[in-house]
């Protein structure tokens, strides 16, 4: 597709279950970001991948959160033992990875933990 694709678009899960969220960046984009958007909050940075460099994981809120990027393209964000406070929109974004390049966002995965 032409844009950043995320799946699932909506996910309802029970507290304590693990969830996986997937992101397909725009073809050719080397930089990939995960952000979280909670009600009434701005976008909160989670993790950043750039090419083959070690990811910047400084925004991950706890060790229940992890992400990987396989083959420099698709990324999966995993949340283990979900808690109700994990309910949020998880947004993926990508860019060409050079200064001045636009960062394009997907439509997000809406996660509800019940």
């Amino acid at each position: 597709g032409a844009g950043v694709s995320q799946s699932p678009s909506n996910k309802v899960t029970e507290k304590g279950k693990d969830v996986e969220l997937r992101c397909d960046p725009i073809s050719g984009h080397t930089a990939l970001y995960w952000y979280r958007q909670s009600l009434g909050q701005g976008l909160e940075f989670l993790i950043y991948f750039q090419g083959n460099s070690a990811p910047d994981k400084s925004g991950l809120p706890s060790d229940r959160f992890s992400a990987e990027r396989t083959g420099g393209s698709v990324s999966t964000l995993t949340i283990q033992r979900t808690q109700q406070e994990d309910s949020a929109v998880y947004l993926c974004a990508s860019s060409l990875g050079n200064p001045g390049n636009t960062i394009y966002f997907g439509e997000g995965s809406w996660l509800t933990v019940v």
Partner: protein
Amino acid sequence: QKEVEQDPGPLSVPEGAIVSLNCTYSNSAFQYFMWYRQYSRKGPELLMYTYSSGNKEDGRFTAQVDKSSKYISLFIRDSQPSDSATYLCAMGKSNFGNEKLTFGTGTRLTIIP
């Protein structure tokens, strides 16, 4: 204190009015300043970006940055109902496009026909 502060609104104005949206920030390392527009249940889309202080105009939109006051603004002229959305300011320190951005909470704007 958050690095970036933005009034969450909501803000309602009549069609045709001039809209002013603002953010303040505390970290003087920010050099790139962006405005994103986010429609309901959609991802944010880049509207404007500026580097350092100054003004930038694009059609009905004008972005202003005052680094001395650590204050940025987005003006929308001749506002239209299609401008109804949440507007997020975002800031980067050096390599916009190659680094994490810091976002404001967003201002929800409604243009009343």
